């Protein structure tokens, strides 16, 4: 099905099941421990051996020699794979660094060996007997010292440099100006489930039971790396314990399980050890950003410029921090610039709202600072500079843009009018109290997605697609879609996900999974409805599918009857025309945060949070809310504590476990409120939905930062905002 013109009325609009707050259909499996994650799939193949990964002890250089003698002789050891005996390996198209290093080492904890043994404990003990002699080289590890050497680098959302009008002249001429520098640190996905894979070979066919967000990408990538035909690789990933972008691409667990299984001649399972994950896998790269805003005295932005520097391994990509500044606020004269420095730190790559999250962390502080310079309320300043068209291409409207409505609704619900605009004036016992707001803004991405739908003679509808559920609720919204389309209750729908044998879906990433994957299911269901109508002698255009029946006029036939003499199956794919070119499709929100800052210690604790979001049709308010409050939590982490600390001497992230890389715990997160504005977006898909999961993190950290400023009068522009950055400027205590 090609989606080329705005959606009109369709069966989804009935909203009998879609749009309802349905609990996750996979919930009972999760809560009873019967949704097996990759490493726990003991039943898929017999005789599984265990692999343990050895990471490089240096960041850059070469392995001079590896002594495997003691490890090979250790109890239970079946095989040891290193670059020396792995055979020829290609590099994946989506990876910057090799998944198996040696002799050249590209980053700290790059995998250099996997030890396969009868038990996990034997594999680990043997791995610790491997002795490696390295020739370390000095690498580049300090982004701040490399700004002059950074080179223009295009980002996913556009070229390295963008310009509209004459930014320099108009910024210089603006009566009110802000020119400030911000930084965001390297961050880890720190998802609950580590990267894990069970691999088994059958002749030249490889099966990987793994934990992955993008099945089709990774099937192709694994085939490329191993020099195989793609049809000989199967991935299966029905349950994923979080990914946040860290499982978009193949990682060492999958490759080393495959290589280990080949060497040991039996199935092998590998999970990345937690202390290895932070340096071995990808992370959100650090940025240094400069934002300049020029405005008239009455608050109209005339010039806005955003530059960002980040670093990556040779051949890597820049963080897209500037992307949202091209679209968020009006202003005739604009520029962005993206620069990339070469670093020898682990590979930077996508993490929840890649670019958007880091850019909004800086931009939405800058806007708060600018409002203060103008003596304006920061929300009124944003509303004054709102735009309903792409500021770079005024002929191109937004399909829907309710940013102002989000702010107005949020301000009312949060009690914004009670905010004291003078910072440092509100006290509640030992706490200095402040309120801050920030815009949330993330684009809606369209990508094709296929599904297969089958009806059996019991009236059960089974959906199969390689879509993944990374904790987001994909199972549930896909079931809701099929149930609505086929006119059956939710219990009559079975959803099977994550198997590369199924039709290729959008996968989970870029907040594109929900809208695209359900649109693909919609397309397949339209075909199945036609097949059913034809079989039962209905005119498919007139047939109504409801209550397990097909109806038209006075005639009603049980749906199951269409499959009486064998199942009916239909497969289709949603594809998109140029609506995304004609209309800018985005999702919007407004974040509100109240913090308390301890007057003595400068400890920051979030007291209240609210997000108001407008993101197209909300397919399931319950699972969508979960996505947004989870993202808000992650935003608090980014604001207050998350930082992969670089040892700039030797080039690695020092705090590489969950004790030292702090993310918010329950005690850090107060009651969170979130509210969706009514919206349907006929430009997005027949579902009229858009993504929400990354929208939720965009802007949260800036709202926290702005609240901290309102509480204390101390403006911190370098994340995370830890107490040591406030302490010097805090009021005296007795």
């Amino acid at each position, binding site marked *: 099905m090609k989606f080329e013109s705005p959606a009109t009325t369709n069966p989804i609009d009935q909203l009998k099941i879609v749009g309802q707050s349905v609990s996750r259909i996979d919930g009972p499996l999760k809560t009873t421990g019967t949704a097996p994650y990759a490493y726990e799939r003991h039943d898929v193949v017999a005789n599984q051996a265990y692999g343990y990964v050895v990471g490089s*002890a*240096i960041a850059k250089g070469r392995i001079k020699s590896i002594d495997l003698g003691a490890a090979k002789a250790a109890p239970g050891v079946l095989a040891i794979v290193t670059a020396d005996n792995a055979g020829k390996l290609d590099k994946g198209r989506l990876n910057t660094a090799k998944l198996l290093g040696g002799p050249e080492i590209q980053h700290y904890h790059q995998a250099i060996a996997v030890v396969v043994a009868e038990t996990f*404990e034997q594999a*680990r*003990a043997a791995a*610790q007997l491997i002795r490696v002699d390295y020739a370390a080289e000095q690498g580049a590890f300090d982004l701040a010292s490399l700004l002059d050497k950074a080179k223009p680098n295009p980002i996913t959302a556009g070229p390295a440099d963008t310009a509209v009008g004459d930014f320099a002249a108009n910024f210089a001429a603006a009566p009110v100006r802000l020119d400030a520098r911000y930084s965001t640190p390297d961050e880890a996905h720190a998802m609950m489930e580590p990267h894990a894979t069970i691999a088994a070979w059958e002749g030249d066919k490889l099966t990987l039971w793994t934990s992955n967000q993008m099945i089709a990408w990774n099937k192709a990538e694994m085939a490329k790396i191993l020099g195989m035909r793609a049809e000989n690789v199967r991935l299966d990933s029905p349950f994923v314990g979080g990914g946040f972008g860290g499982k978009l691409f193949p990682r060492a667990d999958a490759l080393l399980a495959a290589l280990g299984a080949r060497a040991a001649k039996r199935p092998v399972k590998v999970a990345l050890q937690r*202390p290895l994950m932070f340096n071995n896998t990808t992370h959100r790269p650090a940025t240094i950003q400069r934002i300049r805003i020029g405005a008239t005295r009455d608050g109209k932005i005339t010039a806005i410029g955003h530059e960002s520097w980040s670093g990556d391994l040779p051949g890597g990509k820049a963080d897209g921090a500037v992307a949202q500044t091209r679209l968020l606020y009006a202003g005739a004269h604009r520029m962005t610039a993206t620069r990339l420095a070469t670093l020898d730190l682990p590979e930077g790559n996508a993490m929840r709202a890649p670019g958007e999250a880091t850019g909004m962390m800086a931009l939405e502080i800058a806007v708060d600072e600018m409002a203060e310079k103008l003596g304006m309320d920061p929300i009124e300043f944003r509303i004054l500079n709102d735009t309903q068209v792409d500021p770079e291409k005024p002929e191109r409207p937004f399909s829907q843009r309710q940013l102002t409505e989000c702010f107005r609704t949020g301000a009312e619900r949060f009690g914004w009018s009670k905010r004291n605009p003078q910072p440092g004036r509100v006290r509640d016992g*030992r706490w200095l109290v402040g309120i801050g707001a920030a815009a949330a803004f993330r684009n809606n991405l369209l990508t094709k997605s296929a599904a297969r739908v089958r009806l059996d003679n019991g009236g059960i509808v089974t959906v199969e697609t390689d879509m993944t559920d990374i904790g987001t609720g994909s199972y549930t919204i896909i079931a809701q879609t099929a149930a609505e389309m086929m006119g059956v209750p939710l219990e009559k729908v079975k959803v099977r996900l994550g198997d590369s044998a199924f039709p290729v879906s959008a996968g989970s990433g870029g907040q594109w999974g929900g809208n695209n994957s359900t649109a693909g299911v919609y397309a397949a269901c339209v075909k199945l409805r036609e097949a059913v109508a034809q079989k039962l002698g209905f005119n498919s255009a007139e047939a109504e599918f409801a209550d397990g029946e097909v109806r038209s006029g006075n005639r009603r036939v049980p749906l199951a009857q269409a499959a009486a003499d064998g199942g009916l199956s239909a497969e289709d794919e949603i594809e998109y025309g140029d609506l995304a070119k004609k209309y800018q499709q985005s999702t919007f929100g407004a974040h509100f945060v109240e913090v308390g800052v*301890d*007057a*003595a*210690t*400068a*400890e920051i*604790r979030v007291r209240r949070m609210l997000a108001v979001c407008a993101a197209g049709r909300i397919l399931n308010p319950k699972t969508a809310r979960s996505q947004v409050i989870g993202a808000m939590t992650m935003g608090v982490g980014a604001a*207050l*504590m998350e930082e992969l*600390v670089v*040892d700039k*001497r*030797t080039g690695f992230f*020092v*705090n*590489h*476990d969950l*004790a*030292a890389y*702090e993310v*918010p*715990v*329950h*005690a*850090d997160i107060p009651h969170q409120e979130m509210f969706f504005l009514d919206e349907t977006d006929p430009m997005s898909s027949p579902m009229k939905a858009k993504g929400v999961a990354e929208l939720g993190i965009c802007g949260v950290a800036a709202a926290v930062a702005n609240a901290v400023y309102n509480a204390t009068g101390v403006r911190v522009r370098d994340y995370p905002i*830890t*107490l*040591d950055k406030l*302490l*010097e400027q*805090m009021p005296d*205590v*007795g």
Partner: protein
Amino acid sequence: MKSFTYERARNPAEAAASVLRKPDAKFIAGGTNLLDLMKLEIETPAHLIDVNGLALDKIEPTAEGGLRIGALVRNTDLAADSRVRRDYAVLSRALLAGASGQLRNKATTAGNLLQRTRCPYFYDTNQPCNKRRPGSGCAAIGGFSRQHAVVGGSEACIATHPSDMAVGMRALDATVETVRPDGATRAIPIAEFHHLPGSTPHVETALSPGELITAVTLPKPVGGTHIYRKVRDRASYAFALVSVAAIVQRDGTGRVALGGVAHKPWRIESADSQLPRGAKAVMAELLSGARPTRENAFKLSLAERTLGAVLTEAKG
């Protein structure tokens, strides 16, 4: 993890004797720290002697009017004991500020005293660490040192002791009771129990080989207002940047011990005498000779400000 043998000890003397027979043996109680370290091969005992069956899990009054806390009393139980909450509230509060509920259920009194530093370079076996591999150097000096010691450190080590409980015990002048393999017992004042790093940061306590902690005794209650204030980046499950254990009497005199600033719970009795003159006066003495790094210099003013807030709170 290296392979190890395992036994369950039946009484303290037998446990102490057994550990002496097997040179690479260690005692295990809650195991909340030791097992993690064994998995990383930071600890590599060849033999484990499980002391959980030694019946050292009682809290009893002493003849002197204090309390004797068995070495195996779980942190949760100690924090919840009504006598501790009434007479030694600083200890109860310190315990509850540490770790998580699950860990406190498992962690023991003796094990808490013996937990090892959380320095990230200590935990990464690729890095030099004089505590882990004597003579290899200290990566934290000149590296990521935000959490590290500001006082009492050495050229060899700037690690901190991570315990909250021990800071409370230091303020209470607790005594550590032990038994040695030959059956001899002794009582070690908590002030002398933990060592400063000096040139031997791997030697962390006064315990001799095979010596087993049997109890911690608290002297007669001293009254006063008990406060434990732990400052950290997140609200729970994080090690202290700075913590303050204070016992303040109505006349403004009292005691103060700091956590998060040194290789051991940090208290100097002469600094206590400055309490009536305020936090600045106390810290001038307590942190005199401090040698912070660029990354943790903030702990000096943080400690002073935190004590200031504690003293304000104590005045009620």
